[in-house]
């Protein structure tokens, strides 16, 4: 006969086994979903890379091998030598970096005002900013075109920078305002008592503490401007001023599309974005305000 104590022990063991099995199945399912998502994300990138290194005569081949026979970087060399790709890349970089810095500077100060000060129309302003995000981007093309034309900034970098920085402002303001709201006011008050002005408190205390939100706003501005096509199509019309998004489409002819160069270009344009992401990841650490106040 099994003693009640032993019986209890057996029950406990069974319970533990059941719990472990459940946990294992849960992890298996989670990993299956994550791996599935990763494959869906990475596969197109690998295909593009594969196309970019194929020899010119086999671009439209249905071969699924990642590194095809006779693979090489001929398409890359042709893209850099025979087209204005580097120029387009430079244009894009210039416009994107300027847009990101201007956008973040404007948003960081505007968001500070929305977060810290009371003024008439504050709530309405915030809702108005949010509502601009609900309008499809395509609908803004015509007013943007008219505005930039009236300003005499068609086919200029400045026209593009203004259009881009303005359109991503609302999102950046909301992100930054939300973050500022989490920073205790007492930090600024302590700085005021210590001898800074309101601007000084913003500059010395709030901004250094907001790097995670500033990085997110910067990245958002950067990727939006970097990948933008529609506004660029409307504002820019000379090939010399093109951004890479317009430039790549130049490779698409009426009868023939140079898919090899197209793919090579697509691979190359990911490099700056990747670099910016990797660099800014160190600023994205949250919890910077830990320890400042009792929490």
């Amino acid at each position, binding site marked *: 006969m099994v003693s009640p104590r032993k019986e209890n022990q057996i029950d406990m063991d069974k319970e533990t086994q059941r719990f472990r099995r459940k946990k294992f199945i849960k992890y298996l399912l989670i990993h299956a979903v994550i791996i599935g998502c990763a494959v869906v994300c990475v596969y197109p990138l690998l295909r593009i890379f594969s196309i970019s290194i194929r020899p010119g005569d086999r671009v439209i081949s249905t071969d699924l091998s990642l590194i095809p026979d006779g693979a090489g970087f001929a398409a890359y060399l042709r893209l850099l030598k025979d087209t204005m790709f580097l120029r387009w890349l430079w244009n894009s970089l210039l416009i994107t970096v300027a847009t990101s810095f201007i956008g973040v500077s404007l948003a960081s100060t505007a968001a500070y005002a929305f977060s810290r000060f009371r003024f008439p129309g504050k709530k309405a302003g915030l809702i108005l900013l949010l509502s601009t995000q609900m309008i499809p981007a395509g609908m803004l093309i015509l007013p943007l075109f008219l505005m930039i034309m009236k300003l005499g900034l068609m086919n200029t970098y400045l026209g593009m920078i203004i259009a881009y920085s303005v359109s991503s402002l609302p999102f950046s303001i909301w992100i930054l305002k939300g973050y500022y709201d989490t920073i205790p006011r007492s930090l600024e008050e*302590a700085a005021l*008592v210590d001898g800074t002005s309101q601007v000084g408190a913003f500059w010395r205390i709030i901004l250094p503490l907001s790097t995670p939100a500033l990085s997110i706003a910067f990245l958002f501005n950067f990727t939006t401007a970097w990948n933008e096509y529609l506004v660029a199509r409307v504002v820019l019309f000379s090939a010399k001023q093109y951004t890479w998004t317009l430039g790549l489409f130049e490779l698409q002819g009426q009868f023939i599309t140079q898919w090899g160069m197209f793919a090579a270009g697509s691979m190359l344009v990911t490099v700056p974005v990747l670099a910016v992401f990797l660099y800014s990841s160190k600023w994205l650490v949250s919890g910077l305000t830990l320890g400042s106040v009792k929490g």
Partner: protein
Amino acid sequence: MAEVRFSKITKKYGDNVILNGIDVEIKDHEFVVMVGPSGCGKTTLLRMLAGLEEITSGDIHIDEVLVNNMHPSKRQIAMVFQDYALYPHMTVEENMSFALRLMKRPKSEITARVHEAASILQLTKLLKRMPKQLSGGQRQRVAIGRAIVRKPKVFLFDEPLSNLDAKLREEMRVEIAKLYQRLNATILYVTHDQVEAMTLAGRIVVMNQGVVQQVGTPIEVYRKPDNLFVAGFIGSPTMNFLHGKIAAEENALVFKNESLSLRVPEFLLPGGASNAGREVVLGVRPDDVLVGADARENASERIDGILEVSELLGHRENLYIKAGENRILATVEAFFNQSPGSKVPVRFNYPNMHVFDKKTEQRINK
């Protein structure tokens, strides 16, 4: 160091009056504690002095200089915040030297002052640490250190111990008392904790609903509370209040309510027989309630009570006694040794009793 003067200070948010005609003077080198329940306006008043809150009307002077519209940094004050408010991206040393660096003081002076403050507060070993690497008590000490290095005219403390646990609070209270003896500074300290107020203050300002209720030394406020609010707020456990009417009987004044009839000595009711018919509140501190053998001495003043609950606190014991409809709390020496439900004689220590007018809530016996 400096004197501070609040004259007819009022603060309103729309129709909501937060502070109503505050007149308080803080003398040079004085440690004044403002105490009152949450929402009484004490922190608002402190923040007004710091320049962090606008004044609706009235004047604030520091050393006879009107500071109403002066920027916080120009007022030569230093403030210790309730939540420490340390700059999280700076080390302890950078936190403490922040104000001096803004003033563009020479490096040697900054280092000397920071190290001096750090040694006073035992922070020397922590100077290179970030705030998140510190315990609650250490953070509070850094916050105090940040105030000390500036050598301000007035120190402002906004409930600095309220975020600490009970033991640490006790330790820091002693630290602040020592610091005051050492700095001999003018300090305005805000708290809702009456123990902090009683132990630290040179003078206490008791506030309620935006009005100063009483200003006095801790012992004055404890022994002679001006009104019912102060009597109830200061002192732990809280004072017993007995509501009733004064009647004149056989050449004596008697306090009467539904279940009690007590002869009231004349020194408690100036004006004698003219008090007959007056509705009053008798106040007795639990320490002034005599129970058991102590109460048996004078039979005419004795009340018969029933012990409801007793709480042993170590060296003292709280006895919750019911006398008719009146509930009385007595604090006596430990080990009273009576079980709940038993009859206990109760007597009040008349010289320490307080009488308040029920309508005006003001003290009657002076």
